């Protein structure tokens, strides 16, 4: 009997990871990260709209997720109640927290042979609780409480995976998924908010103006860090610069890109996965664009154009990863790319 040929045997490192599992890990991380980001945005919007400082708030949540059409078809008018319900509990909205959690749980179900039991249990219980969110739960007086719960559960998930997940290549795929989503979300947040919030001449320097930039920073959980490094001023440019380029802020686009770089590096040199090279090349360009420009340069060349390009780079990156590690020619199934155009 002849042994089956195994050309990859010499470069392959144990333990192996099924392509399908790599894909599910990447998406599980994206969906969980998406839930947390959306919960932050909803919570902050709720606070600031209620205090009357950010009237554009609810509409801009819809814009961030590029859901204008779907929203108006289902609900018509955007107000605190309809937007909250649309994003918390609407099954017909693929970008809702409920839908993201459903997708996260189905990916986790696929991964159950691999992931720690505690990780599945928490996602399972979490989803089943959110499944029960009713119309009455989504009223303005309860939104903030629900968002706190959602954030806590996402952080519990992060803690469980940090404390129990075996550090093999699966971990790298998970982390890449998480930082792709986070970087993408921050870039969307800045893109939409920056332009809605750009001061009109009569607002400059008013209390209203500053509060809105507070809201933006809080939505990205960056308010305290921003204040620590900018105690004396708050300008639109410095806020955008902080959220996009700051190297130490865990939700900045630059920080996310650096993390992705580290984990792609682990895949290629640590685990000998040649498939990572294409993604690394794709990422190089994005990293260079973020490293080599100041926020002033970006603003002068057009922030919106730049962020559009950043989002396309993330899509390209994800494509390169999928192509190298899990996509097959006959495969058509695609998980949901966040939001929009």
């Amino acid at each position: 009997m002849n042994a089956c040929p195994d050309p990859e045997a010499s470069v392959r490192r144990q333990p192996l990871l099924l392509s399908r599992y790599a894909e599910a890990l990447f998406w599980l991380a994206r969906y969980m990260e998406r839930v947390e980001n959306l919960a932050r945005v909803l919570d902050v919007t709720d606070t600031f709209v209620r205090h009357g400082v950010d009237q554009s708030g609810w509409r801009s949540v819809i814009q961030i997720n590029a859901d204008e059409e779907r929203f108006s078809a289902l609900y018509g008018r955007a107000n605190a109640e309809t937007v909250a319900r649309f994003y918390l509990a609407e099954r017909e909205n693929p970008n809702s927290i409920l839908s993201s959690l459903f997708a996260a749980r189905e990916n986790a179900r696929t991964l159950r042979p691999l992931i720690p039991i505690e990780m599945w249990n928490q996602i399972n219980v979490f989803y089943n609780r959110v499944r029960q969110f009713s119309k009455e739960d989504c009223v303005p007086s309860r939104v903030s409480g629900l968002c706190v719960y959602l954030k806590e559960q996402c952080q519990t998930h992060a803690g469980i995976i940090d404390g129990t997940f075996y550090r093999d290549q699966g971990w790298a795929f998970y982390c890449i998924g998480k930082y792709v989503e986070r970087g993408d979300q921050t870039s969307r947040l800045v893109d939409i908010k920056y332009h809605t919030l750009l001061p009109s001449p009569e607002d400059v320097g008013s209390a209203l103006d500053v509060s809105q930039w507070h809201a933006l920073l809080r939505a990205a959980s960056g308010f305290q860090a921003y204040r620590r490094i900018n105690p004396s001023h708050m300008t639109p440019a410095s806020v955008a610069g902080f959220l996009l380029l700051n190297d130490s802020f865990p939700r900045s686009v630059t920080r996310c890109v650096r993390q992705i770089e580290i984990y792609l590096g682990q895949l290629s040199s640590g685990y000998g996965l040649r498939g990572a090279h294409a993604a690394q090349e794709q990422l190089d360009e994005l990293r260079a664009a973020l490293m080599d420009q100041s926020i002033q340069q970006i603003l002068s060349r057009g922030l919106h154009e730049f962020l559009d390009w950043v989002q396309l780079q993330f899509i390209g990156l994800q494509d390169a990863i999928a192509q190298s590690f899990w996509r097959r020619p006959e495969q058509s199934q695609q998980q949901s790319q966040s939001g929009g155009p």
Partner: protein
Amino acid sequence: MNGLLDGYDKRHFFCELMDCTSHDPAVQLIASRLAAMDPAELQRRAKIAEVELFNQGITFTVYSDKDAIDRILPFDLIPRVLTAREWDGLERGVRQRVAALNAFIWDVYHDQHILNDGVVPRHLVLANSNYRPEMAGLDVPHGTYVHVCGVDIIRDETGQFLVLEDNARTPSGVSYVIENRNMMRRIFPDLMDGIAVKPVGTYGMMLQAALAEIAPADAADPQVVLLSPGIYNSAYFEHIFLAREMGVPLVEGSDLVVENHCVYMRTTAGLAPVHSIYRRLNDDFLDPDVFRPDSTLGVRGLIESWRRGRVAIANAVGTGVADDKAIYAYMPRIIRYYLGQDAILPNVETHICGEAEGLAYTLDHLEHLVVKPVGESGGYGLIIGPHATRDEIDAFRVQLRADPANYISQPMINLSVSPTLAGHGLMPRHVDLRPFAITGRKTWVLPGGLTRVALREGSLVVNSSQGGGSKDTWVLE
């Protein structure tokens, strides 16, 4: 004894607990601990168990358009207890059964001595829909076809164990055996305290070892995988559980590819060889080149690769010919034919309606018999004469006459009972037992097995699809 078991009336049935207290002090201790329980406390623990099973996803999932609803197999927290002596007989009986099944399948796909000698009617085997001509002449490692066997065993009024059915294809339920034990340790530690119960946690290791034993001999470090139909399968939890316990990937058909008669799985590092497959997929779906051409769950070229000895498949293809309800009737004779022994575990007396004598007997005694279609499982399509109405029996008579070969009949066995939590007390409910045997080179039997319980009062049908639940099964040291 007094307390919770005071009003317990097992009637004329054999009780797995109360009829064993006299000859085993541990059983007596368990009974007295149960009797001393506060029913409200039992209810509270039962509720915790239910929530935990749900939260942990020890469930089967019902998919609808946009949601996935998990359901649990009901769990009864009163264990079913087997004494060391009872288990000794069961274990020897199961081993014997597995040895005979493997010898029979080998023979059927090779020289067919048993058919030539007229011990088993030729047509029952060769015309059986589960007979796979593709298997003829194929040698499997160690002569093992049935690597995982589940034998359904019941107990009559006298306490005699009887085999009701052999499951030689892809028997399921073993995950519940182990999860039920885990659950008992968490919510009922005080019942087991100080009582030596045989552990069940090694099943995954034993299964992995058997699968490695049947891998092609030149695979130094065999790659074992579990092949599942995927998340929509009702036994998906068990597939997850077994993959996890074995430490092997759970693959779906689309994860595997055959190139030059070698089986590979798609990994992030490219194609990696697979040497041994525990498949939880029926024969029909395994390979569209050989069986159902429309199967999207299988792997093209898998069977040819297997025939060439490049990969092992457990259970082997074509084992369904041995666990058919009509072949079952011949099992005592099959055991004697190959092993020269009497069956340690007797069959339930069985009449084959495909034979004139059996049909005549069945038609004459329909109101006293259980009549089952041979091809069905899950408790579907059967009639329990003593529980049926006149009209149901008349309707069934027509059905039976139209297609007698599709049926066997057996006397109604009054299944043994076990105290089961119902409302605020312990009530007798009927149970069966499915021990699991793993065979690579040798056979190993998991101590105990799955005890299924008919939760509805008076019901004799333990299948989960018909209102059944399960219990932890304790084999005393």
